[in-house]
Each structure stands twice: as structure tokens, then as C-alpha cells.
């Protein structure tokens, strides 16, 4: 046992002592990154000094730590991919990478990690990019403190900020992504954590899941994206304490759920979105303690959604609280606060004495004939809504919150 530990320490020290630092600068013996990698041995550190390095197709095929000092610029001159990592245990830190080539056949990225483990990508600034950080079939990595600023205009010729493909156990934290296609995109990637990121002004989604399971994202802000966050064909996703705001537009929502099962949505704020949450074919989802503020539609249910629970949420000043496109309901609404509730609480237990009916006839009419939205808040509409409330015909008659709270819920 003792020998084992000693030998381990000895090996560790040996490798540490052998690890060298290679400096790269314009007047140094090594004046570009590619050469530095060529001369470096495993576990060496490459320090890139301030300057502009016009390089692309940099292949990192050894476990190296590449550190930029005072943000050196790596300029790809639009010629293609810039850094490709194919080795385990690579750290890339503090670079300013610009001008990634655009292609319609290949997904060029500012930095790509391919079939590797234990990578760390941090403190990068990416501009004029196609794809930003592309993680492919890799595991156990960390991506944090990066700033990705794209200039995407159209969906077809732009790439994603951070993309994970067939990857596992990746932590994405404290990144700032804007003006790309999808801010963060996960495809076939499980057990990932996405935390404290800001994803704004992206053309398509702020965050996008496809066929990815058991992921968690929390404390992120998604603002003014083409269509907010999309979670599709995925299972067991946890969504905690995120802010979804100002996602305006025709097919725009704070959060889109499509074919999602067993998710938990808790403590999020949905404010000023055209649609707060758009749900299609999603089952067994718990919505707890979320704030829906000033949305056009707080929740839009488009059929085939079963056994979802909406418990203790705040619905504040939304044009429509809930919209259904059929009159069948299998979801439960309980103990929420609805600012549109007009009932009373005679026994003073904090719960309204008459149930609240969150689906209005008018939302059904608007689903059918969208132009009628212009009559929103008209007295006539209030009258027909009232009559529908008294005897539901077009809206699900069992869709009730039997215990509407009288005061905004705090947690």
C-alpha cells in the first residue's frame, strides 16, 4: 500500500517536473501555435503572448494546456475551422478567436473537441464565427466563462454558439452567447449541466435540446431570441430558476416543449413573451413555483398533453392565462395565483371560494381566427367570456383551479 502511494506521487511529480512551458510570440523562437504544438510534449503548457496569429486548422493531438496571455488573437481568415482538439485532457484558456470560415457542407467551428475526455474550454472570446464551440462524441468536459458574439442574420447560413453532439457529462457555465443561430444546442447529449449562462438575441433558440436526456439547466437567462428555448424529444430534463423573457414573434415562445416526458420545471420566470410555454405532446411534467408575467399566452397547450401538474405558480397580467385547442383536459391546475381571478375569500383561508377557470372562450376564438386578437379586452369579448364561464361549451369544462390563491405566492 505504502509503496503504491509513493510510486504514485513519484510518477506524478516526475510528470509535473517534466512538463514544460512553451511561449509563443511574434519574436519568440516559436512564433505560431501550430509549431508550438509540434514541439510540445504531453502535458506541456503553451503560453501564447499578445499578438495576432493568422492560423487555422490547428490540430491539438496531445494533452496540452494552451493559455492565452492578454487575449492573443487567432485569426482564421475565414478559411475554415480554427482549433480542433482530438486528445484527452486538453485545456484551452483565454484566446480571442475570430473569422471562422463559413461552409454549406461542413460545420466549421472556432474550436472543436472530437472524441475526447476531460477537456476544459474557458475564457474564450469568439467573434465572426460560424459554429462556436463544437463538442463531438466527448465526455467529462467543462465549458465556462466564454463569450460568443456572432453576427448571424439568416438561419440557413449561420451556426450555433455552443453545440454538443453525442456527448456526456459536460458542464456549461457562465457563458455569454449572442447573435448566433442556436445559443446552446444539445443533440443526443445526456447528463449535462447548463448553468448561469446568458443567451440572447439569437436567431433561432436560446437553448435547444434534441434527443437529449437527464440534463439539467438552471439559473440561465434567455432573452429576445427568435423562439426562446426549445426542448424536443427528450426525457427527464430539469429546468430550474431560469429567466425567459422578451421572446416576441409569431412562432415565438419562452419555452417550447415537444414530445417531452417526465420533466420538472420549477422556479422559472417567464416574462413578456408572446407565448410563455408552448406544449405539444408532453406528459408527466411538473410545473411548480414559476412566475408567468405579462405574456401574451402564459401557457399554450396544443393537444396530446397528459398528466401534467401546474401547482403553485403565479400567473400575472397575461393577456391569456391558458389556451387549449380542444375541450379535453387531463392536466391538473391547483393552488396557483391568477391575477385575473375575480372571486372572493369569505372564510379568509387565503384560497378563493369559487374555482378559477383559466381558459377563456376568446382564446379559443383567437386560435381559430387570429385576426380577432384585435378585439382583446373589448367589452363585448368580456361578455361572451363571461357567458362561456357560466356554461362552458368550447373550452374544457373540467379545467379548473379549485384552490386559486388570493395573494401572489412567494417561495
Amino acid at each position, binding site marked *: 500500500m505504502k509503496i503504491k502511494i509513493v510510486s504514485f506521487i513519484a510518477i506524478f511529480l516526475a510528470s509535473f517536473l517534466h512538463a514544460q512551458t512553451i511561449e509563443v510570440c511574434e519574436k519568440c523562437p516559436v512564433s505560431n501555435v501550430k509549431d508550438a504544438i509540434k514541439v510540445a510534449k504531453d502535458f506541456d503548457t503553451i503560453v501564447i503572448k499578445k499578438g495576432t496569429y493568422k492560423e487555422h486548422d490547428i490540430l491539438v493531438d496531445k494533452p496540452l494546456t494552451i493559455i492565452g496571455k492578454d487575449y492573443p488573437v487567432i485569426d482564421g481568415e475565414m478559411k475554415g475551422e480554427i482549433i480542433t482538439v482530438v486528445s484527452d485532457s486538453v485545456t484551452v484558456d483565454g484566446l480571442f478567436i475570430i473569422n471562422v470560415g463559413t461552409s454549406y457542407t461542413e460545420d466549421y467551428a472556432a474550436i472543436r473537441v472530437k472524441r475526447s475526455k476531460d477537456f476544459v474550454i474557458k475564457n474564450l472570446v469568439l467573434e465572426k464565427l460560424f459554429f462556436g464551440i463544437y463538442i463531438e462524441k466527448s465526455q467529462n468536459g467543462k465549458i465556462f466563462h466564454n463569450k460568443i458574439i456572432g453576427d448571424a442574420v439568416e438561419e440557413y447560413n449561420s451556426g450555433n454558439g455552443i453545440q454538443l453532439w453525442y456527448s456526456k457529462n459536460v458542464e456549461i457555465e457562465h457563458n455569454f452567447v449572442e447573435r448566433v443561430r442556436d445559443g446552446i444546442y444539445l443533440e443526443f447529449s445526456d447528463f449535462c449541466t447548463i448553468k448561469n449562462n446568458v443567451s440572447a438575441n439569437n436567431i433561432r433558440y436560446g437553448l435547444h435540446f434534441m434527443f437529449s436526456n437527464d440534463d439539467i439547466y438552471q439559473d440561465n437567462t434567455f432573452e429576445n431570441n427568435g423562439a426562446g428555448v426549445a426542448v424536443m424529444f427528450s426525457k427527464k430534463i430539469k429546468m430550474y430558476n431560469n429567466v425567459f423573457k422578451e421572446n*416576441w*414573434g*409569431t412562432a*415565438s415562445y419562452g419555452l417550447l416543449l415537444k414530445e417531452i416526458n417526465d420533466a420538472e420545471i420549477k422556479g422559472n420566470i417567464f416574462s*413578456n*413573451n*408572446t*407565448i410563455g410555454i408552448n406544449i405539444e405532446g408532453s406528459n408527466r411534467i411538473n410545473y411548480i413555483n414559476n412566475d408567468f408575467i*405579462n*405574456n*401574451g*399566452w402564459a401557457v399554450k397547450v396544443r393537444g396530446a398533453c397528459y398528466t401534467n401538474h401546474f401547482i403553485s405558480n403565479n400567473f*400575472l*397580467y397575461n*393577456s*391569456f392565462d391558458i389556451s387549449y385547442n380542444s375541450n379535453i383536459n387531463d392536466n391538473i391546475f391547483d393552488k396557483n395565483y391568477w*391575477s385575473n381571478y375575480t372571486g372572493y375569500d369569505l372564510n379568509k383561508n387565503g384560497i378563493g371560494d369559487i374555482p378559477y377557470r383559466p381558459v377563456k372562450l376568446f382564446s379559443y*376564438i383567437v386560435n*381559430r*381566427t*387570429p*385576426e*380577432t*386578437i*384585435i*378585439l*382583446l*379586452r*373589448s*367589452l*363585448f*369579448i*368580456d*361578455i361572451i367570456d363571461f357567458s362561456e364561464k357560466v356554461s362552458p361549451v368550447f373550452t374544457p369544462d373540467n379545467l379548473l383551479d379549485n384552490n386559486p390563491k388570493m395573494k401572489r405566492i412567494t417561495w
Partner: protein
Amino acid sequence: MLKILKYSFYDLMRSRWSYVYFAFYLLLGIVLLFLNNDLSKAVITLMNVIIVLVPLIGTIFGVMYYYNSKEFTELLLAQPLKRSSIFLGQYLGVAISLSMSLVLGLGIPFIFYGLFKSTAIWDFSLLLITGAFLTFIFSALAFNIALSNENKIKGFGYAILLWLFLAIIYDGIFLMSLILFEDYPLDKLSLIGTMLNPIDLSRTLILLKLDISALLGYTGAIFKQFFGTNFGLIVSIAMLTVWVLMPVFRIIFKSKKKDF
């Protein structure tokens, strides 16, 4: 005209009804703010009140004032005064005193509540501006009705009908026609339909503030241009101005030809 305006205004400021109106709004403001303690909700409730009640009160008050001051009007007609200035003066007296009751009645409790520190100030000011516009429009329409009907009962009847039509029936017909023609592109039609009714117009103006997220959910390009930019705000205010000017011109025109 300014002199007539001055006297009509003083006359109204002293009448019981201005105080009742003022007190009503004061009370409404206080109840909404201090019992409810939720500014956003208060603004939404106020919008409903303004859209429905302000036109009603404007019409009824306008008709009532016209009929009640008939003798006074005749006294003025014998004086060396232009007819248009007599009626415009009276009209402006009514419209200004009503608007003042509205703005002060709602404004005072909101100021005490600390509105100036709140972000809702723009929504609230827009609400008051819209209310003032509606007062001007509907008292002008009321004067038109009264000028065309010697019979008081008939005048009141038409005034109530006008309100009922613009506040409720119009929207019913509007909704029916939108649903009926839903296979056609309707965004132009629906915007035009809105422009033709001052109540709908003011409602839209307020929607621009309160429900912009929902309005932007609709696909039509014209809609998008209207609601997505300042274009909608400018067009709505311009149309409201037209809605004030049209009945005012008719007051001038009609009063020139009328026998007393």
C-alpha cells in the same frame, strides 16, 4: 370663444355633477391602489373603466349640458357673438371640465401612491391621454346629437344608443364578420375596422402597451408593422384626432344652419 369657454367651464366646475364625476374617479383610484396594492392590476382595471365609462359619461353629460343650457344659449345668441364660437365654447367647456375631473380624480391618488417612481407611469399617462381623447370625442358626438334633435328624450335615447353601439354592438358585428370571412386575409380589414370606432381605437392604443406580447403573435405583415413599431401609436393618435375634429366641424356646420 374663449370667453364662452371660460363661463361654460366655470358654470360646470360649480355644478354638482362635475364633483360627483371627480369624486367617483378619486374613489376608484384610491380603491384600486390602496386596497389592491397592485399597480399593474390597477392599470388594467382602469383601462376597462376608461374604455367603457368615459364614453358613456361623455355622451350623457354632453347631451344633458346642451339641453340644460338652452336658454342660456339663446341669451348668448342675441349677443354680438359668432354662433360657432358660442357652441365651440360650450363644447370645450364640457370636454375640458370632464377631462379635468378624470385626470385629477385618477391622477391624485396615483401621485400619492408614488407613481412618479414607478415604471407604470407611461402606461398610466397613456391611459389618461386616451381618456381625455374619448371625452372630447364623445362630448362632441353628444353635441351633434343634441343639435340635431330638439326633443330631449329622443336626444338622450340616441346618445345612449350611440354608446351602446360603439361600446358593444360594433365589436359584436366586427367579431362576427372576422369569423365569417376567416378564409380571407383579414389584417387590413381588422385594422380598418378598429380605426372606424373611437372606442376600439383607444383600446388598441392601450393594448399596444399592455398586451404587445400577445399582439405580436399574429403573422400578418401589416399587423406586425402596426404593432411592432411606433407606427401604430402614431396612426392611432392621428385617427383619434380626426375623430375629435370630425364632429367638431359638424357642430360648426350644423350650428350655422340651425334655428333657435
